[in-house]
């Protein structure tokens, strides 16, 4: 109650402050007048009387200051005054203020951006979802080498027979033909169980999501749009509810729009969602879904749930039908993140934190330098009656103003950075939005930065003794040398951190360029790839796909010169690859000794090897008849030949791949995929295209010069077969390779940005320290010059001294990078984390930048002796 009244009176006093001030002035004027009158009465001249009265009265400002302090409400007033004063002070020193604010903005912005990214990718794979007790279901091969999502029939088993899961939901993503207001589109859409959205706790942007009865297949078909699709197609119009879109030929009513931040997978955003059970969209019973999720029943631990899952998989007719041993697995959302991506992101996050620390160091540096420069002002004010508390508070207010501006700048920078982030990331990462948590984080960080950096100079600045400062003994001043040491330590730390970041960036860049230029096993120049996909509704029947393939083959053969040609690949040549785990069993070896490998498979046309230029070391390429021959044939890579047929000839032997026997007709060189090195690129199998045709082709053409006409001719052939087929993804092999390396590219790019920022900040820091020490010693320099010292020698000495600090930083940075090498090694393929060809150039660059940052302020030491002496 008392405190409340205190606050109230504080506020009242503050609101009445103007009047109070006027009244106090009048009161004191009255006092003076009375004193004057009395003096006159005692016989003085009016002038003298007034003078004496005023003398006796003393400083009115000082009195009113005391009164104001006695009165409540001075805190608010003081704070406001301090802030206003802080602004004024900053405006008077725009360069200092700008440097400090920019430094802080950069530090806050980078850390926040990286945190947003890590948050989106690593910490919260399902934004906006209620993650409590959430698990994903997977099926894993018994030896752990392969995995898939469960099938709908298996999920039904879980729903019916398990007690550990309170809910089991699933979704699956595929391409759909869509017609919106008469315009045909081909987009990725998703189908989900009817409880999917309520399970995730997703609240629609407008309208509603699925109801339980939507899953039964009764009622009119409905659809929920993604936010992106709503924006792209309907301009966020609220009228879309109730409109009808045609999906795979069936009318669906739009019932809702999902929120902006909803996504089930970082890399995919289906444009719309339909409930399982809508007309003709039943999930295929034995085809794995895209994702299956559930929630642990209250009180059930993960171990109990896993045990129950194991029991269900062991004892069920559904699972017994499966052709291999699968084990059910539950995983938390966090365990889903690709470990290499997680490692890369955390590493980059570390980099951003280093930049932030450098920024803080710089800010402290700047503020300390300011504190030194203002020593005299502070001492004078202190002796005029400003309490130490007030001075500290006022300096803190100045820092707070900078903190607020810097934090605000940081938020702006983060917005901008998040917008441009997709450019630096592998394709598919997009739409990171600044969330409130991150905003709070930014504000928190900037306040922390202000507290850390503001307190030190404030304490140093207010601990001054007027006499000492006025005497002009700054070099011998007590606090000063101590803080000069602090600042040098800061510079050492900045240089060391900048070096570490630069070295990391250098290593990642070298890694990337090495992978880019590495041998891929075939000449990559002038190689063009064109992707064609066959929509499921039109080409559902295998004969239709085979027919299209044959037409395409013949058409291309007629259109393109012999040395050009088409090779078709089920997925892609170098991108969108995925391995199937399975055993490869050569003839004569017992199947029990089989050893599962991740197998990379390409289905290829007969001229694939010729067009690509992939050499065959044994045997022959495929022939047209291979596709329809009685015995399945296979071409294996040298790695398989070496491993399974060590005696030599592999051609003519038989090999079991995918559980059926194939005759080996050739042995080819490996396709060396840089992005796959060390992962699953070793076992490569080629099967003839034509026996079964997938729903997409990649056409490979070697163009000599005229790429455009080659693309045109391919397009003509495709359209002569089916005018409605879109030509997708025309790309050059070089680009496709680069795309397959996009993760490495992002790591390198981001680290380059971090390290350059760190280097610039470090340079500012060095500049500040040297400039400060030079300005302190300018008299000394002047005297030395006057006594005949050469100016070159003087600059040399200053530079040498600065560079010694830098040198210590470099040594520490190198040591730090060596220690961190093992962390970095996980991101590097074929580059030693201690590569001297990276270290020495990085050290040289850092040294040169540091030298420049030292040399500029050092030059000021040689102003003419007269000018130097006149500065005091």
């Amino acid at each position, binding site marked *: 109650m008392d405190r409340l009244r205190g606050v109230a*009176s504080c506020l009242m006093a503050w609101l009445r402050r103007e009047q109070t001030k006027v009244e106090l002035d009048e009161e*004191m004027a*009255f*006092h003076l*007048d009375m*004193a004057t009158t009395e003096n006159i009465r005692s016989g003085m001249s009016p002038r003298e009387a007034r003078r004496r009265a005023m003398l006796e009265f003393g400083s009115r400002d000082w*009195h009113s200051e005391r009164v104001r302090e006695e*009165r409540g409400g001075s805190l608010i007033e003081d704070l406001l005054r301090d802030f206003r004063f802080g602004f004024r002070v900053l405006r008077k020193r725009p360069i200092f203020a700008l440097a400090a604010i920019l430094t802080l903005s950069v530090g806050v912005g980078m850390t926040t951006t990286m945190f947003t990214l890590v948050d989106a990718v690593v910490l919260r794979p399902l934004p906006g979802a209620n993650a409590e007790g959430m698990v994903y279901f997977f099926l894993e091969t018994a030896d752990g080498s392969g995995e898939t999502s469960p099938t709908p029939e298996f999920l039904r088993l879980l729903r019916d027979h398990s007690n550990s899961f309170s809910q089991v939901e699933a979704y699956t993503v595929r391409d759909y033909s869509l017609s919106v207001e008469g315009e045909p589109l081909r987009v990725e859409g998703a189908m989900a169980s009817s409880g999917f959205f309520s399970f995730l706790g997703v609240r629609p942007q407008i309208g509603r999501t699925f109801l339980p009865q939507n899953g039964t297949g009764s009622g009119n078909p409905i659809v929920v749009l993604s936010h992106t699709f709503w924006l792209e197609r309907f301009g966020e119009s609220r009228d879309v509810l109730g409109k009808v879109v045609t999906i795979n030929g069936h009318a669906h009513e739009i019932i809702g729009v999902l929120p902006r931040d909803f996504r089930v997978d970082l890399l995919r955003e289906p444009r719309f969602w339909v409930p399982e059970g809508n007309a003709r969209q039943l999930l295929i019973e034995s085809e794995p879904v895209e994702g299956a999720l559930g929630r642990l029943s209250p009180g059930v631990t993960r171990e109990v749930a896993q045990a129950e899952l194991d029991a269900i998989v062991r004892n069920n007719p559904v699972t017994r039908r499966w052709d291999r041993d699968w084990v059910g697995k539950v995983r938390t959302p966090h365990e889903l993140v690709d470990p290499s991506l997680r490692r890369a992101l955390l590493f980059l996050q570390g980099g951003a934190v280093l930049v932030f620390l450098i920024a803080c160091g710089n800010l402290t540096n700047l503020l300390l330098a300011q504190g030194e420069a203002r020593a005299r002002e502070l001492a004078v004010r202190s002796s005029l009656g400003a309490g130490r508390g007030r001075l500290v508070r006022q300096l803190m207010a100045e820092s707070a103003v900078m903190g607020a501006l810097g934090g605000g700048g940081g938020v702006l920078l983060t917005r901008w950075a998040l917008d441009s982030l997709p450019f630096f990331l592998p394709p598919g990462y997009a739409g990171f939005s600044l969330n409130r948590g991150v905003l709070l984080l930014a504000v928190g960080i900037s306040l922390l930065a202000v507290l850390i950096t503001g307190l030190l100079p404030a304490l140093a600045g207010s601990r001054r003794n007027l006499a000492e400062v006025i005497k002009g003994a700054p070099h011998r001043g007590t606090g000063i040398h101590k803080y000069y040491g602090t600042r040098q330590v800061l510079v050492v730390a900045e240089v060391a951190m900048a070096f570490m970041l630069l070295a990391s960036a250098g290593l990642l860049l070298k890694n990337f360029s090495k992978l880019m230029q590495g041998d891929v096993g075939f000449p990559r120049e002038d190689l063009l790839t064109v992707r064609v996909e066959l929509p499921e509704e039109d080409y559902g029947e295998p004969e239709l796909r085979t027919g299209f393939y044959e037409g395409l083959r013949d058409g291309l053969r007629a259109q393109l010169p012999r040395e050009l040609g088409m090779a078709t690949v089920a997925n892609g040549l170098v991108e969108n690859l995925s391995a199937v785990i399975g055993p490869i069993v050569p003839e004569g070896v017992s199947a029990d000794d089989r050893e599962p490998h991740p197998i990379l498979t390409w289905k290829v046309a007969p001229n694939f090897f010729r067009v690509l230029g992939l050499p065959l070391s044994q045997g022959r390429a495929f022939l047209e008849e291979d596709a329809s021959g009685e015995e399945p044939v296979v071409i294996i890579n040298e790695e398989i030949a070496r491993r399974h047929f060590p005696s030599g000839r592999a051609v003519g032997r038989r090999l079991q791949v995918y559980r059926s026997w194939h005759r080996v007709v050739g042995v080819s060189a490996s396709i060396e995929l840089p992005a796959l090195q060390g992962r699953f690129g070793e076992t490569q199998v080629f099967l003839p295209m034509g026996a079964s045709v997938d729903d997409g082709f990649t056409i490979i053409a070697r163009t000599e010069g005229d790429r455009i006409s080659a693309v045109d001719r391919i397009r003509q052939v495709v359209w002569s077969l089916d005018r409605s087929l879109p030509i997708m993804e025309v790309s050059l092999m070089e680009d496709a390779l680069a795309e397959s390396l996009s993760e490495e590219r992002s790591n390198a790019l981001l680290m380059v940005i971090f390290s350059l920022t760190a280097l610039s900040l470090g340079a500012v820091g060095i500049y500040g320290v040297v400039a400060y020490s030079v300005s302190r010693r300018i008299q000394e320099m002047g005297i030395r010059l006057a006594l005949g010292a050469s100016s070159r020698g003087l600059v040399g000495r200053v530079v040498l001294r600065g560079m010694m600090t830098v040198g210590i930083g470099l040594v520490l940075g190198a040591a730090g990078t060596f220690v961190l090498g093992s962390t970095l090694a996980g991101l590097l393929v074929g580059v030693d984390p201690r590569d001297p060809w990276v270290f020495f150039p990085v050290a040289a660059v850092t040294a040169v930048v540091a030298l420049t940052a030292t040399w500029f302020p050092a030059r000021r030491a040689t102003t003419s002796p007269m000018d130097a002496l006149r500065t005091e």
Partner: protein
Amino acid sequence: MFDESQDLPRGTLDLMILKVLSLDPMHGWGIIKRIRNLSRDVFRVNQGSLYPALQRLTKKGWVTADWRVTENSRRARYYTLTKGGLQKLDEERRAWEVSTSAVGRVLEATS
């Protein structure tokens, strides 16, 4: 003499102000003069101590301030003792008497 408030034991100034105001409502200048006269020129209260002290007493609710017109028809801020102030004065005075007589006994001790 005692020019500086620091030379007075803390609370003494407040006590004297309360006492002076218990006689008559008074403005700042008057309070100083009154204390000076009553103390026979021993205490010259400094303006720098007086006004903060008055602010302090007002805030505690022991005195109130209002603008009145002096006998020379000038506007001045007059301070008046409140009921609470009167009570406080009694308390403070009793405490003062106890402590001065105690100090006196100590000083007059002969053995």
